[in-house]
């Protein structure tokens, strides 16, 4: 439970962070709730930790026309309570509120969660459902990556060497549904579903957040929610484990998609608490 030795640096600005990130074996540390456990288990052993957690310039939420812009170091707890998020991107508030416990939500950041890209994570799926765009800075300057192109696999993203997320831009979207199935409180989703507008994204049903494309198409063609939800597990490849088989997860995906769509359609009660 003690990580391998590493150097620790704490840059004062994004520019300085990028400089430090260029050194070999460097890893970016934000809230630390994904990276530090992996280091303690010695799954990863970076040589240098570049701790940007205290960079205030990356912790903000603002409305820019019909887009909500969220600084990469905005905490989950900020997303839960921020009035702009709650009004214009309520799905993010709901998804963030389901992450871990209070302590975790006060450390974990939206940028860290996206960069870590765990397919079982709630917030990346919600950002993808919203059609979010990831703003990236790196050695070659700034670029924007749409979330549909951002997640490349289990804990793999389009972030290049030495790049970091500085913010996320999410189109305003108030039509939402969210379902997360866990056995106990505080767990990762066995399966989850995030719905924003026309978009349906499955949590933990593959190696990355997965669009339920067949369901979305069926809905566009006028299928009922029940019919469309029945197609939610098409083309999914969830992990098969003794306590939750792939078949069971696909079944859950169909049930939860129906419930999330019903919530989005206002057919069942439920809102932000």
């Amino acid at each position, binding site marked *: 439970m003690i990580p391998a030795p590493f150097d620790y640096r704490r840059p004062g600005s994004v520019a300085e962070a990028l400089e430090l990130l260029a050194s070999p074996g460097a890893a970016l540390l934000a809230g630390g709730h994904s990276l530090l456990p992996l280091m303690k288990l010695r799954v990863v052993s970076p040589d240098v930790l570049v701790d940007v957690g205290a960079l205030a310039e990356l912790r903000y939420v603002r409305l820019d026309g019909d887009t909500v812009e969220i600084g990469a170091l905005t905490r989950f707890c900020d997303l839960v309570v921020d009035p702009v998020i709650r009004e214009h991107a309520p799905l993010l508030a709901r998804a963030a509120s389901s992450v871990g416990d209070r302590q975790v939500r006060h450390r974990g950041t939206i940028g860290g969660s996206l960069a870590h890209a765990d397919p079982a994570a709630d917030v990346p799926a919600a950002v993808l459902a919203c059609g979010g765009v990831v703003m990236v800075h790196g050695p070659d300057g700034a670029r924007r990556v749409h979330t549909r192109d951002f997640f490349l696999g289990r804990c793999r993203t389009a972030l290049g060497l030495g790049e970091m997320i500085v913010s996320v831009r999410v189109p305003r979207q108030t039509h939402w549904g969210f379902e997360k199935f866990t056995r106990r409180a505080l767990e990762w989703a066995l399966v989850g579903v995030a719905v924003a507008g026309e978009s349906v994204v499955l949590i933990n049903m593959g190696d990355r957040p997965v669009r339920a494309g067949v369901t979305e198409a069926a809905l566009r063609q006028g299928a009922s929610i029940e019919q469309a939800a029945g197609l939610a597990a098409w083309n999914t490849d969830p992990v098969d484990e003794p306590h939750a088989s792939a078949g*069971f997860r696909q079944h859950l995906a169909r049930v939860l998609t129906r419930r999330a769509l019903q919530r989005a359609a206002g057919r069942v009660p439920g809102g932000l608490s």
Partner: protein
Amino acid sequence: MARIEDWALITSGGRYVEDVRDPALAGCRYGAFVRSPVAHARITGIDGSACRADVFTAADLDLPPAGRGPVVQPWLARDVVRYVGEPVALVVADDRHRLADAAAVVRVGYEPLEPVIGVEQALAGEVLLFPETGSNVVRVHGTSFDGAGFEGCEVVVTRTIVNQRLAPLPLEVRGAACVWLAGRLVVWLPTQNAHAARDLIAAALGAPVRVITPDVGGAFGAKMGADPEVVVLGWAARRLGRPIRWTETRSENLVAMTHGRGQRQTITIGGRRDGTVLAFRLDAVQDAGAYPRSAAKLLPKFTCLMAAGAYRIPVVEARVRAVLTNTTPVASYRGAGRPEATAAIERAMDLFAARIGMDPVAVRRINFIRSFPYTTPTGACYDSGDYHTALDRVLAAGGYRELRAEQERRRAAGDVVALGLGIGCYVEVTGGGGVGEGARVVVGRGGVATVHTGSSPHGQGLASTLTMLVSHRLGVDQVIVRHGDTDLIARGTGTFGSRSLQYGGSAVSRAVDLVVDRARDRAADMLETAAGDVELTAGVWRVRGAPSSRGLTWAELCSAEELAADVWFDDAEPTYSFGAHLSVVEVDTETGRVVLRRMVAVDDAGRVINPETCVGQRHGGLAQGIAQALFEEVRHHPDGSLVDGCWGVGASELPDFELLDMATPTTRNPLGVKGIGESGTIGSAPAVQNAVIDALSHLGVDHLDMPASPMRVWQAIS
């Protein structure tokens, strides 16, 4: 009286083994164990040359074996490893932060052997853990079966069910701090019984040992005595001439601390269509893990002993075969063989009720034991009980009839959320393991009473209860309770098997009696009257019949010389606590998710001394039984590695418990008390399991193994 231990234990001020800052430990080194990553293999070599630390292997240890015969766990694996997590080498470094780096570069060569995983494979005997013994069966307990009891039965139901393996998961993992002082090993060790730990370590090391038990962050049966690691650490501290500390990691704890439960049970129940049960057979195979611990001794004994449950069944046959597998050794875990027996009989009663189309409550009422003492066919002699009243009370408090009506309404309406009601009636032997307990009570200067008890509380709140006992009897304000130090306590048995109040409390009570007798003589002398003429009232000794006379306080009485009494108490027999639990669950038939809505419980442990401590034990016990029913399971891959699972349960998963009081005294000990430590666990697991099955009964489900995971529920109904 409010509990006195809790604040320190749960906030700060508790002193666990990691917190011990004794000067003798200055300059200590840190130990870590290299453990087997494979379940069954021959060790082809161990190379610690790249390790910048001291490395010790079995070849270095000059210690006698831990027991006789071939089937004994070596202190460190020698030649063969038999489970994932078995200690293979000890690494000792100066810097604890470098310890993991040092342990990581110890190279161990393994030549794989086929692992034996699961009791079926163990019984098949194609691969043997100890080939020289010719079998993986290490113990057979109980009777042989003749089948005659089932001949006159109108209905016989048989089913094979699994009481799954669990991890004890104490909040505090295992650890130790060892130092040799003047030819004697001093060990700070979180244990349930310091004296047994001392004897084990001393026998292994051939030297005197003192064990000091700091605060213990939970044990549940898995911190009995001392594990092999502690002996190796004590040996290494002697070899190196330096103190050594050790704390395992949480991941390590999951594979290296003993597990609990782990029985595959074939249950057969027979009787008449009017609900009378005539015969019950429990044929269980106990997975003992790789080396025999209490799963090869105590658990089979208790399971057989308690097979009849709360019922007057003319023929009860019980047999438990303990087998070795290439998995973590299995030992006691909150209940140790009794929850397994209770789960079997309570499932059997429901299966029988379902087969004859009778309400499970009615079948239980017909078959309850109603007169005491009662000796069961497997030899348990129940002291006292009132099983039908316990059940009637939970049914009344729960509103059983109304709940049944709601269940019918939901079914008729096609509600996707099904309602289920489950009953768990139990009897359990408490104080059934280990005899006797020591106590010393001293009233010293200032009138402060000090209690030395051989019991070893580790979260139960026994110090509060003993404080109450002593302060009520003596009328003193200040009571200090000491335990767990083999230098302070001459003899001790420890805390396990719900025994502490019956034995430890009775010992203290008797010591208090002796102190009072001696105080009476002294008070009479000082008051210049006869011993028969003085009395103790509210902590003051006075001449009888002269309430306004100048009295003697304990402080005055003991100002020159303390008053003390030493007792070894073994004048008691095991008692049989009992109770009834009603569980109400909702099952989402679309997702398989089970939510526990209500838990109504009677737990009758005889006379209650400290209600708060009693309630605390019931709460924790209920939570652990519910966790077994719904969540927990230790599973192994066929290769013997641990499968990621679901461990523990939190407040979020539990309703407020509805606890009813009932106290049927016993005459088997002077206090009239029975044990309460394991009751909640024993009753709640079958109650919740039965409730889940009841919720799905209209869908053709008559059994589901624990835990009732969503997938298992979904598979049963789809």
